[in-house]
Structures are given as structure tokens and as C-alpha cells.
């Protein structure tokens, strides 16, 4: 019994991190079809912004949530306006263009902040651990889990319960028809891209204390995020949450009897196999071609 509880908790913790990282990507990919290879770099930007605000301006992690989101969202908005906008009819090229953006963001950080590792301590009031179902669990990881759920619900609420969300879903289904009914598809695309990058930055800010911060930390997040989105299918946020859980628990299960690296490798292999049979992901209905 002991094993299952700790197993379940660790898989929830990995799931919440995966969900936070993948959510921004799923929203952008689901609505605009753009494959944002710079998504990892936006996670990195979030981490560095949080580090900057904390060490240079002494703003705490929680207090810096809004500024991190706004700064990165603005950056995402600019990049969409300048570059991505020209590529909506050449989606395969968005992979290349966004990867190029990733390179630029990395080098920009290396030139300004430098390449040596940075560390973000967990805020003191969350540093300890608490008992949960008889297991000692770090408070911070519980906080991340709750925060991930909060972001997910926020994103879900915006998309499914607001007028903007409805416009966004209308544009996703049929861009031309949506514009025939007064929806400025261009603005919706820009807002979606900014929203997605903002969430990626928040993920970065909250994951940073668990690991070190370096200019190229984004690279290993991009593949995880992609696997979650691709496996989950793009039609629904629920699909993204479900596939985060599947990948989260599988990798934590494999890791329990081997190690993280092998776990990651095996999970990737499983996903490649699944995609061979069901390319459109697990949670999408077969739609008329």
C-alpha cells in the first residue's frame, strides 16, 4: 500500500509539472495550428524573469506571477506580430521559424545574463514538508500541483466561459466564417499566442526552484510538452490534462524501478508507437477529411 501512495503522489507531481508546461503549447497549437518550438525558451524566460525579480528587485515568487505573465505575454505578442503572422498558411515552416526564435532568445539571455547556472530558492514558507495520506511530501510540490490545477481551471474558464473564449473556439473551427461575423481572427491569434507564452513563463517560474536555471534549459521541456499535446490530441484541454496524467504516471512508474533517463526514453518510445496507429492523438473524434 505504501508503495502505491508514494507512487501516486510522485506521478501527480510530475503530471502537474507536465500539464503546466504543455498547457500553453496546447492552446497555441489547438487554436492556430502553430508548432511553437520556442515554447521551451518561453519557459526559460519565465524562470529568468522570476530570478531577476527575486534577486534584483526582491519581489517574491507569488508576487511576481502577474509581472512574469505580462512581460512574457508581451514578448509572445510581439513575436507573433512580427514573424508568426506571415506563416499561417505554411504551418510546417512555423517549426523552423519558432526554432530560430528559440535560438535568438537563448543567445539573448547568454549575452545579457550570462550562461552560468542560476538558482531560485523555494520561498521560505513553502520550504518544509507536510504529511499527506501518511507520506512526507514537500509543501512546494503540493503548491505546484494546486497552482497547475488553478492555471488549468483559469484557462478552461477563459476558453469555455467567456466571450473571448467563444471567439477563440470559433476561429479554431473556421477562421473565415468567424471573420464574416465580426471576429478579428488576427487579433485572436495574437492574443492566443501571448496567452500561451504567458502560461509557459509561469510554468518556468514555478519549476525553476526545483532545478537549476540555464539558457538551454528549455530544450528538454519542449519534447515533453510536445508529447503531451500530440498524444492528447488538440481538440480539447481535457485531452491535454489526461495525457499529462498518462505520461506523468507512466514515467514515474518506470522511474520507480529504473531511473529518470530510461523512463523518459521508454515513454517516448511508447508515444511513437501510439502515434503510428492513431496519428491524431488519443482524445480526438475522427472528423470528416
Amino acid at each position, binding site marked *: 500500500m505504501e508503495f502505491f501512495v508514494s507512487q501516486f503522489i510522485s506521478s501527480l507531481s510530475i503530471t502537474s509539472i507536465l500539464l503546466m508546461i504543455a498547457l500553453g503549447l496546447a492552446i497555441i497549437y489547438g487554436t492556430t495550428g502553430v508548432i511553437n518550438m520556442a515554447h521551451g525558451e518561453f519557459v526559460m524566460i519565465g524562470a529568468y524573469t522570476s530570478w531577476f525579480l527575486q534577486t534584483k528587485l526582491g519581489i517574491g515568487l507569488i508576487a511576481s506571477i502577474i509581472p512574469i505573465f505580462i512581460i512574457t505575454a508581451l514578448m509572445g505578442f510581439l513575436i507573433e506580430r512580427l514573424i508568426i503572422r506571415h506563416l499561417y498558411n505554411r504551418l510546417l515552416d512555423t517549426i523552423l521559424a519558432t526554432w530560430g526564435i528559440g535560438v535568438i532568445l537563448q543567445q539573448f539571455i547568454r549575452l545579457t545574463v550570462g550562461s552560468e547556472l542560476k538558482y531560485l530558492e523555494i520561498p521560505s514558507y513553502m520550504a518544509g514538508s507536510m504529511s499527506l495520506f501518511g507520506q512526507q511530501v514537500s509543501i512546494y510540490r503540493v503548491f505546484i500541483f494546486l497552482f497547475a490545477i488553478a492555471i488549468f481551471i483559469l484557462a478552461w474558464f477563459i476558453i469555455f466561459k467567456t466571450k473571448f473564449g*467563444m*471567439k477563440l*473556439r*470559433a476561429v479554431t*473551427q*473556421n477562421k*473565415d*466564417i*468567424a*471573420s*464574416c*461575423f*465580426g*471576429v*478579428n*481572427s*488576427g487579433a485572436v491569434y495574437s492574443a492566443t499566442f501571448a496567452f500561451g507564452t504567458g502560461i509557459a513563463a509561469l510554468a518556468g517560474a514555478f519549476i525553476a526552484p526545483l532545478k537549476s536555471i540555464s539558457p538551454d534549459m528549455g530544450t528538454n521541456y519542449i519534447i515533453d510538452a510536445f508529447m503531451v499535446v500530440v498524444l492528447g490530441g488538440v*481538440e480539447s484541454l481535457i485531452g491535454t490534462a489526461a495525457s499529462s496524467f498518462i505520461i506523468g504516471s507512466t514515467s514515474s512508474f518506470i522511474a520507480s524501478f529504473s531511473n529518470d533517463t530510461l523512463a523518459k526514453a521508454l515513454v517516448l518510445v511508447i508515444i511513437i508507437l501510439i502515434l503510428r496507429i492513431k496519428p491524431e492523438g488519443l482524445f480526438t473524434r475522427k*472528423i470528416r477529411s
Partner: protein
Amino acid sequence: MLKLENVASYYGESLAIDQINLEVKEGNFHGIIGKNGMGKSTLLKTIMGLMDKTDGSINLAGKDISKLKTNDRAIEGLGYVPQGRGIMPQFTIEENMVVGTFARQKNNMESVNEDFEFTLKLFPILKKFWKRRGGDLSGGQQQQLAIARALLTKPKILILDEPTEGIQPNVVEEIENVLIKLNKEFNLTIIIVEQNVQFIKKAANNFSVLERGRIIEGGISSKITSDLVQKYLTI
């Protein structure tokens, strides 16, 4: 109400329609007829601003809209019913109709509920399947939903692209009567592309015939005679 002066438009580089001069006065019912592939839909897409490139001027209720983007043109007062109906498959009937309200102008927002009731009276079937997804509706139901949605933008002119195409005859009858009622009783200006020449002859005030991207014939609807049909439509 709607005036086009030597309008031409292009798919990429290739010219699709050329030298189009057309006027639809307020309260008029104007039919566009012609064989398939002659540019009828292209003309409506040009008015909506969905073409790659367009020349000439398009004027709606005295305002030049040719420079505006599609979404701003819709807000100026264009109610569009596209070919193939363009229903949002994952949205329910209710959500599809709410999409129609996005283009309403600020000043007539209060009459939204009133318009909802009005359109649901016109098309009672929509009320019956209120929560059903657009993708699961039959052709006829989708068509009625598409018209209801366009009406909800409180348009200055209703633009319909082959609304009776591929729909069973009884529903066609209903749609035609609704359009005539909207035009005659509510003075709604309508421009419609239609294969069914009989309906145009009965309902429209005037018409234009499109051939290879140009208006080659037109006038009041009584001018539609069998030899005109023979010459341009069947061959």
C-alpha cells in the same frame, strides 16, 4: 444600399471576376444566376472581402467598405450565409447563433433577445434541437441555422450563397417563404446567388446573369424568360 463600381477580384494571380457594376437598392431582392463555376460565389466572397486581391469600390449604405477587413465589413452590416452553410461543427445551435451576435453594432445590442425570439419563430426547428451540435444537423437544419445566425447580426443587407443547394424540397419551400417574408414584410435588402431560377423569378425584384466572371445580362425579374434561361443556364 449596396453599390459595386467596376470591381474585379483574383484567386492568387488569376483573375476571377471583372468589371462588375451592380447596385441593390434598399428593400430590394436581387438574384444572381448563372452556370456553375462562372464566379457567382466569387462575387459574394468579394463583397465580404474574402478574396486574395480586389480592385474597384464597394459601397454599403453610403460608406466605402472596400478597404475594410472582413470582420469590420460584417460589423458595418453584412449578414452572410456562405455556400456550404459554414456552421461551426462543435458548437451547439445556441452557440452558433451567439456567433451571429458578435457582429452586431453597439447601438442595437438591447434588442438581442427580441431578435432571438423572432428568428426562433421563423425557424422553430432550431428551438427543438437547441443543444444539438452543428456537426450532427442535417443539411436543411444547418441551412436554417445559417440564415438565423446571419439575421442576428441585424444586417443592412442579407447575403445568401445557394441557400437551397442539396436540401430536400420541403425545407427549400420553407426557406424560400421566409426569405420572401423578410423582404416583403420587414423590408430586408437581400442579395442571393441561386441555381433555382424559378424562385428568383417569383421572389426577386431584379437579377443579374454571370458568365465567365462578368455580368452579361440583368434587369427586372420579369425579364427572365425561357429563352434567356435556355441561352445562359442550360445549354
